[in-house]
């Protein structure tokens, strides 16, 4: 979707504001928001792709005005309600009102180290050979789905060069919507700055994206 999250090349946000000796958290609630997001992910009810899409669906004025842990929290509430674990009304009230759905697992303190060390690999084998090879010229598709995609707007309908086939991975455009993992090859595709930004582009700039095979057409 062409949501507020798709920020590459937008203007007007001002300078980057690095903070010297930045702490990991700026408030106690940020710690809890991180932990709640990871703990709820352990329920096994949604994928990382669905959670990203929930964040993208926060309306632009709110997304752009929110800190990242606020974005996470808003999206988490949507996911919890969608999957039957907690309603917004319950959070408004601050107490349990209905019985929740049954999670596949509940993350307890003793599981944390193992779960974090294991992560959630999303490479998956595919039967097909990679369609593109390093050095191939490819054009990214021009589409504007209302659903989840990881092809940023700035990199659509652009011609670049395949640098590497990076393996085969879960296809987020399907997986975010419960349509299955449908893995595809992923390629690193490099574009000249001028191909993306046109007149006035930095002549020393190249930009790469990691693109699922279905995003690409042979030139």
């Amino acid at each position: 979707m062409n949501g507020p999250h798709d920020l590459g090349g937008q203007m007007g946000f001002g300078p980057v504001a690095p903070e010297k000796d930045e702490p990991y958290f700026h408030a106690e609630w940020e710690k809890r928001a991180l932990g709640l997001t990871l703990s709820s992910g352990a329920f096994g009810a949604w994928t990382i792709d669905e959670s990203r899409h929930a964040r993208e669906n926060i309306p632009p004025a709110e997304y752009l005005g929110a800190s990242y842990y606020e974005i996470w929290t808003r999206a988490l509430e949507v996911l919890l309600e969608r999957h039957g674990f907690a309603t917004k009304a319950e959070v408004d009230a601050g107490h349990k009102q209905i019985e929740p759905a049954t999670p596949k697992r509940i993350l307890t303190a003793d599981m944390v180290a193992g779960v974090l060390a294991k992560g959630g690999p999303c490479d998956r084998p595919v039967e097909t050979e990679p369609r593109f090879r390093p050095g191939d010229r490819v054009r990214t598709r021009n589409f504007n789905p209302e659903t989840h995609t990881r092809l940023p707007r700035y990199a659509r309908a652009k011609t670049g060069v395949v640098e590497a086939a990076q393996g085969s991975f879960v296809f987020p455009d399907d997986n975010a919507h419960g349509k299955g993992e449908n893995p595809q090859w992923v390629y690193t595709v490099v574009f000249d700055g001028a191909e993306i930004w046109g007149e006035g582009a930095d002549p020393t700039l190249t930009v790469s994206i990691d693109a699922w095979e279905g995003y690409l057409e042979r030139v």
Partner: protein
Amino acid sequence: MHDDHHHHDHDHDHHHDNRYSDMQARVKALETVLTEKGLIDPKAIDAIVETYETKIGPRNGAHVVAKAWSDPDFAEWLRTDATAAIASLGYTGRQGEHMRAVFNTPDTHNLVVCTLCSCYPWAVLGLPPVWYKAPAYRSRAVIDPRGVLAEFGLTLPETKKIRVWDSTAELRYLVIPERPEGTDGLSEEALADLVSRDAMIGTSVAGPRA
């Protein structure tokens, strides 16, 4: 779900959803509800926070870089299978499942961004800083990297190529900065002290801490 969506739109007519005007209260309420339902273990949250405050941070990545500078075989392993090479040092897991190491050279400077969210190699750098997740960096890194670098106090030669890596899939990128001159004979530990978090994102270079 659809009903919820309509409610949500309706909230927007009021410009801001007041639920989130007090995040401390909102997140506390959320934790209370989930705890009452037996869905979460507050001690697990404590353990997650403690892990990212004390165990997983840029020191991990600096170790990887220092070893790459000291050990050509390790550097080559990083180029060909960064996930395995980094795992050999004990750094694995969440948001580090599929690692790639990208090496700065005299010709090319690498810069990592995630324009679509805030993908970041947690296993080697820990939690991302606020600026990495904020719109200014995510919007400008791909179109005006020199302007961004200048805001970090880094001015590169005009002829140096800049390669920006937008983390649009599940690969996570670690920049291996150039080894500073005059560091021959330093131990891996002393070398790691020269490697900041920002140097491994590409918004800085390696060197003594300013």
